[in-house]
């Protein structure tokens, strides 16, 4: 298939985003604000890990290594995740806002992919639809709760998180060198189209939550991740994440 490089690039972006956000969000397990939320957020992190496994499995069928090797043995320059997912968890306000902005993009991306000409991805998109719909429901309910129905402090913290997270979130949509190819072959409509849908989807929710989207002078400040240039946070996280795996890479779990 002539679009292999383009398709693999798309799959690596998605799989790496899901793997890294899954690991970051799982860092809250046992430390969540209340038990009910601890369970919900951990469960969402596990879903994301499952999605990354499914995507790495598709990459395996295209000639890449098996999923564990791909997930646990690459160094940061080989990762294609965006900067947004790399940042440490911060406070719960930061993690919730990241979860909201990331998951809305994740949901809309999979929605576009349900009609992808690459059938295995279209099938996967249909399969994960329900899980991601819940992720967005969870995120949006929290954002509205803390933005519009909470206290002055909760509103202020959500606004300052949005100010931090929003410019990073624009890095999700860093264009690839394959945009035209992916669109022409019907695999994926493209990052620009996705970003447009994303803005339209987050705006009314943020408005209901009394939160204002900050002006961003240069969206490209969060670019680089899709080409292997990452923040200083990714490699330490990868080292920690793969610590046990590296003790014995051949062990069977």
């Amino acid at each position: 298939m002539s679009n292999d490089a383009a398709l693999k690039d798309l799959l690596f972006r998605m799989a790496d985003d899901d793997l890294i956000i899954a690991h970051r969000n799982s860092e809250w397990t046992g430390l969540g604000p209340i038990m009910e939320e601890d369970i919900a957020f951990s469960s969402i992190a596990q879903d994301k890990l499952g999605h990354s496994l499914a995507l790495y499995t598709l990459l395996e069928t295209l000639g890449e290594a098996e999923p564990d090797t791909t997930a646990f043995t690459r160094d940061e320059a080989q990762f294609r995740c965006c900067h947004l997912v790399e940042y440490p968890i911060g406070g719960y306000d930061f993690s919730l806002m990241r979860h909201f902005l990331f998951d809305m993009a994740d949901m809309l991306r999979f929605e576009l992919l349900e009609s992808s000409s690459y059938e295995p991805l279209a099938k996967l998109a249909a399969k994960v639809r329900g899980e991601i719909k819940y992720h967005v429901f969870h995120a949006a309910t929290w954002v509205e709760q803390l933005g519009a129905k909470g206290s002055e402090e909760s509103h202020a913290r959500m606004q300052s998180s949005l100010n931090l997270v929003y410019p990073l979130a624009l890095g999700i949509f860093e264009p690839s060198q394959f945009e035209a190819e992916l669109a022409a072959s019907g695999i994926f409509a493209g990052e620009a189209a996705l970003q447009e849908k994303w803005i339209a989807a987050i705006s009314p929710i943020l408005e209901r939550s009394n939160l204002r989207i900050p002006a961003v002078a240069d969206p490209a400040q969060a670019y680089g991740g899709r080409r292997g240039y990452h923040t200083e946070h990714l490699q330490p996280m990868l080292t920690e994440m793969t610590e046990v795996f590296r003790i014995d890479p051949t062990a069977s779990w």
Partner: protein
Amino acid sequence: MTIKSLDPRITRAEIPVDNESTWTPLPDMDQHETYEVFHQEKRGDQPTHVGALHAPNPEMALVFAKEQYARRSRCVSIWVVRTQDIHTIGIEDSDVFETTPAKDYREARGYRVGGKLTEFKRRRAASNE
């Protein structure tokens, strides 16, 4: 000296080893209220009570209920209701449910009509012929 843990997250939190002197008891927690959760296993089923949870309002109760009570079992629908909004005849009054033995005549199963019904249908079918 801070706690060095196998869990890197705990090590990073830099919790003093001698931290008991720095503990201050929390004030009485102002807990969220509780909600009772009902789920429906499949379309058409009666909703079944599956448990309770803490939440600040109904929307958040639904968000939590999905992962608390529907992540491992079949479920097509969830209800939540504030525990306070449920009115009960409690276990302390369970004697109101005790019944006298000889009251078959008040219950549907006290009437044996199966045979009569079959006979009626047979006769009607015969007269229609």
